[in-house]
């Protein structure tokens, strides 16, 4: 317990083009860290580097003090689980088998998963309350369900950290909340979670830390309250944003609302004649 991923001064990008530079952040067990920023600012690139899909151009990522470059793929997979965006693979595997694939890192190269692996899969399905999906075909379930299955698959790896790529994109209002709740619950059990998102609101909802990436290799890291202000969001996204505080019974809610510029011809409501 109490592990951390230390991201130190990393630079990443593609052949000759630096996308992110001088980025630092720390992800600890039990914490949620959101990567926030406008399109094209390098969230995905950074994410790929953290998963080892792209090599770092400078700086280092240390998992519990050990440089990620020293990890073999299987070793890294046992510590860091990747949850991609819900997608449709070309083959129609059953949900149970998809989750079972998460056990690959624990298998010898020529081995097939055994009863112990299947037990762990059932556990993960149970934890996410999707046991009823086990026998269904992955390509035929809904987007929200697929996202849950992918989370279950990452959990089956038995990792200390989850890296989630826009886990709520393409989901409806209710499913977004469900997935977000799952993320908070998992963090509560001691997992450290890094997720990219396009919605500043979610940072408040998870009571998470945030790294706000801004154009020009700039980034701000800290708690949601400190970092997400009207000023910083305006600088990051180039629009006018209201950060509001609302009270509902005993709860204090914080929310971010973009303010659209006035359009010609009066208000936004259509006129009733």
């Amino acid at each position, binding site marked *: 317990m109490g592990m951390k991923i230390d991201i130190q001064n990393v630079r990443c990008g593609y052949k000759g083009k630096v996308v992110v530079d001088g980025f630092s952040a720390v992800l600890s067990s039990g914490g949620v860290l959101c990567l926030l920023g406008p399109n094209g600012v390098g969230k995905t690139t950074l994410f*790929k580097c953290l*998963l*080892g*899909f*792209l090599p770092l151009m400078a700086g280092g990522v240390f998992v519990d003090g050990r440089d990620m470059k020293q990890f*073999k*793929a*299987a*070793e*890294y*997979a*046992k510590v*860091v*689980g*990747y949850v*991609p965006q819900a997608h*449709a*693979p*070309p*083959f*129609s*595997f*059953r949900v149970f*088998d998809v989750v079972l*694939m*998460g056990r*690959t*890192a*624990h*298998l010898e*190269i*020529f*081995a*097939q*998963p055994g009863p112990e692996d299947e037990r762990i899969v059932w556990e993960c399905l149970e934890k996410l309350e999707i046991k009823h999906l086990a026998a269904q075909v992955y*390509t035929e379930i809904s987007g929200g369900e697929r996202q849950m299955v992918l989370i279950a*698959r990452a959990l089956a*790896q038995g990792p200390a950290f989850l890296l989630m790529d826009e886990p709520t994109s393409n989901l409806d209002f209710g499913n977004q909340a469900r997935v977000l709740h799952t993320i908070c619950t998992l963090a509560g059990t001691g997992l450290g979670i890094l997720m990219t998102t396009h919605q500043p609101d979610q940072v408040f909802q998870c009571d998470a830390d945030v790294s706000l990436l801004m154009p020009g290799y700039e980034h701000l890291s800290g708690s949601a309250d400190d970092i997400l202000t009207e000023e910083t969001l305006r600088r990051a996204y180039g629009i006018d944003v209201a950060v509001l505080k609302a009270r509902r019974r005993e709860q204090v809610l914080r929310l971010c609302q973009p303010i659209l510029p006035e359009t010609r011809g009066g208000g936004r409501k259509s006129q009733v004649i």
Partner: protein
Amino acid sequence: MKKERLVLIGLAAALLITAFVSLTIGRYAMSPGQITAVVGARLFGGEMRPADTEADLVLFIIRLPRILLTIMVGAALSASGAAFQGLFKNPMVSPDILGVSSAAGAGAAVALLIGLSSVGVNFAAFCFGVLAVLLVLTLAQIIGRGDGALLIMVLSGIVVSSLFRAFTSLMKYLADADNKLPEITFWLMGSFAKSGGARGAVIMLSVLVLGGTPLLALRWRLNVLGFGEEEAQAMGVNVKQLRLVIIACATLLTAASVCLCGSIEWVGLIMPHIMRLLTGPDYRVLLPAAMLGGGLFMLIVDNFCRAVIPGELPVGIVTSIIGAPLFIYMLCKRRREWA
């Protein structure tokens, strides 16, 4: 899991029965009783009648090696097709995606043109097949890195295939139209008739063991590869290494098949497909099922070729005639799988 096991057992049983029936097919008439007698004499010793001695010869020198070879080639092509389909995340891929068949054909054409022995022809075909894949891999290595590597590999495969096919045409053009040209043409049609009897069967068996065993052992990882390079890596798979091993094994299987029997199309594309309908996409069952099914299909087609006309039909023609409409049928049936 139960249904899957039944499919495997059913396929194995069908294969055994068909193999036995196949022994009776051919110009030299043999009853099942006679076959049992001859096999019994071989296994447990004992006297053979003169008629049985002849039957013994036909059975063990001609039919049995051919039947075994046919089954093994079917299994090899089907396994290699299934493996490539997983590797390229695409159920439309066939074993010659990287140019093995076209190149092996070119190799055989050259060897036939300069008048090498049948062993020489087999060897040249095999070497050209492997050479083509090395060429494709080198091209892909030079041009594509990262995400696009697979696509570059497929495109390089198309280019290399086309190049070798042109080379084959050139050989045909240069060939003497009276004897060399027909020889080359017949070779390219694919047939088990000149596959070298017992020698061919032994070669194919060793190749099947050498290339098939690693594929079977890695079949769980083929599942994981189906989710793409990044996800597979994040699940702990050394993707580059795994990819090379799979390509090496599948190439070995295809090249050996083509060099012994000429190019036999569609089997490696269709059999994994049909089996996927029966067993689902899980390679733990799919790969063995595809091998059994491929062997069974190849054997039935070859029996048909042997039985239907006296001179025997080239098997490659029949697989194409059966394969094309079958594939269209499956396209209609399982469209959504590729959506």
